[in-house]
C-alpha cells in the first residue's frame, strides 16, 4: 500500500511538473510585439491558462477626422464602437499547443471589424508568424510580428 501511494504520488508529481513545464514554455509568447505594418504595438499577457494580446501603442493614435483617440468604430456590435483602440484586446483565448505553436485563438482586425480564427507560431524567440484565417488555415494570411524590448516603468 505504501508502495502504491508512493507510485501514485510520483505519477501526479511528474504529471504536474510536465504541465507546469509546458505552460512555462508557452509563456515565451509574453511580451510586446510589433506587426509588420509598424502601426501598432501589441502586449501579450497570460490570464489564467490562456494568452491575450492588447493594443498598447498606435502610430496614429487619433482619428484624423475628429482628432479624438481612435475607437473601434467598425465593430459590428454597435455597443462596442466607442471603445478606445488603445487597450483593446485583439488577440484572445490562445492556448499553448507545444512545439512553439499557440492555437484555438482569434485575432480581431479593427480596420474592418472582422474576427478571424488564428494560430501563432514562434519562428525564433523574437519572431512570430501570426496566421489569421476563415474556416481552414488555407484561406488565410500570415503576418510576421517582431518582439520589442520590454518597457521600463516610468
Amino acid at each position, binding site marked *: 500500500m505504501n508502495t502504491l501511494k508512493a507510485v501514485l504520488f510520483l505519477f501526479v508529481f511528474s504529471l504536474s511538473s510536465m504541465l507546469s513545464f509546458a505552460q512555462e514554455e508557452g509563456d515565451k509568447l509574453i511580451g510586446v510585439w510589433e506587426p509588420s505594418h509598424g502601426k501598432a504595438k501589441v502586449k501579450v499577457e497570460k490570464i489564467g491558462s490562456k494568452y491575450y494580446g492588447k493594443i498598447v501603442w498606435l502610430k496614429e493614435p487619433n482619428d484624423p477626422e475628429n482628432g479624438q483617440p481612435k475607437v473601434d468604430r467598425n*465593430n459590428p456590435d454597435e455597443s462596442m464602437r466607442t471603445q478606445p483602440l488603445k487597450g483593446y484586446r485583439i488577440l*484572445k483565448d490562445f492556448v499553448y499547443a507545444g512545439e512553439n505553436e499557440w492555437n484555438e485563438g482569434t485575432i480581431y482586425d479593427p480596420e474592418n471589424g472582422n474576427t478571424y480564427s488564428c494560430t501563432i507560431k514562434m519562428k525564433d524567440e523574437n519572431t512570430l508568424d501570426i496566421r489569421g484565417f476563415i474556416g481552414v488555415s488555407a*484561406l488565410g494570411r*500570415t503576418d510576421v510580428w*517582431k*518582439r520589442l524590448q520590454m518597457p521600463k516603468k516610468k
Partner: protein
Amino acid sequence: MAFCVAILFSFPLELAAQADSTLVEEDEEDYNMYDDLEFVDGTAKRFANAKIKGLSPAKLISLGYDYQGGHDITAGAYLTATEEKAKLNAVHGTRFDANIPVISKNSLIVQLGARFWDVNYEFDDPASLTHPLLTTLANNNLRTVGLNSTVFKPLNETSFLLFQGSADMNGDFDIPDFQRLKYNRYSIAALWGKRPSDYKQWAIGVSRTYRAGELNYIPVILYNWTSVSNTWGTEILFPARGHLRYTLNPRNMLFVGFELEGNSYKVGNQNSAFVDPFDGKKDDLEIRRGELRFRFIYARQLIGFFWLSAQAGYRVNYSYNIDEVPNGTDFYRGFFGDQPLAMQNTLGNPFYFNVSINLVSP
C-alpha cells in the same frame, strides 16, 4: 439558390461581437512607456501591403448568375449562308470563380484560381433559325473553363510587382467533352507599382489580353484610392474595369463604373452547321466576343465572411465577329491590322443584372 444556402450554413464561421474579455482591466496602464521601444534583434523589414484601407473585400469563392435581357442578333453572310436577324429573349448563365491564396505572407502573395462560366442563348423562335451561327448558339451554350494565377511581390515598403496570368478554354463544348488544349487562350499582365500611403496605390504595366474579344497587347493602369474619411474611393484596373466606390460602412458598399469583358470562343461545330461547300466541315472558327458593361454594384456582408454582390447595368456590344483561326494558332490584329474577318455580326445592347454570393478574404 438552395445550394447557396447550404454553403452558408455548412461553413464553420466565427462572428465578431467583442463583448467579453476585450476591455482592459480597470487599473490604469501608462501607455506612454511603449512609445520608444526598440526591436530586440535589430530592425524589422517592412513590405508594401497588397491592399489599401477601404477596398472592397477580395473574393475567394464566387457563385453567381448573370442575366441579359432581350435583344436582337444579326448574323452576317458567310459561305452559303445569307445574313439573318433573330430575336433573343435572354442571354444568361452561371459564373463560378475561385481564387485561393496558396502563399500569403508579408513578402509574397501567390493566388491560384479557377473559373467556370456558362452562357445560354435563349432565342424567341429557335425552330425558325437557319444561319449556322444562330443554330449553333441555339443548340450549344458558350462555356469558359479557366485557370489563373496572381503574384504580388512587394519590393520594399512602398514598391511592388504584380503579375497575373490565365489560361482559358472557351468554346461551345459539352462537359466533359472538352476541346483540345491547342485552342486555349492565354493572357498575362505585368505591373510595377507604388503604395505611397495607406490610402493610395497605383501601378503601370503591360498585358496580353483577350478582353476585347481578340488578342491584343495594351498598357494597364491600376489606381486604388480611398478618402481619409473612408467614404469615397476608386478601384481601377484600366482598361479592364474601373469603379467609383461609396462606402456606407465597412459592410455595405456602392459602386458605379464599367467592366470590359471578352473571350475568344472556339466553335466546335458539333452539329455541322458550318460547312464549306469545297472544304467540308469548318472547324477553325472562333467567336471574338467583347462587351462593355456599365453598371451599378451593391455589395454587402450577409453573415460572417459571406457577401452578396448585386449589379445592374447596360451591356454594350463591342464585338461578336468571327475569325478563321486555322489549327487554333491565333494571330494578332490589334487596332490597325487588316486581316479580314470571316463573319461580321451585330448584337443589340440590353440591360442586364448579375447576382453573386461570395466568400471573401481576410
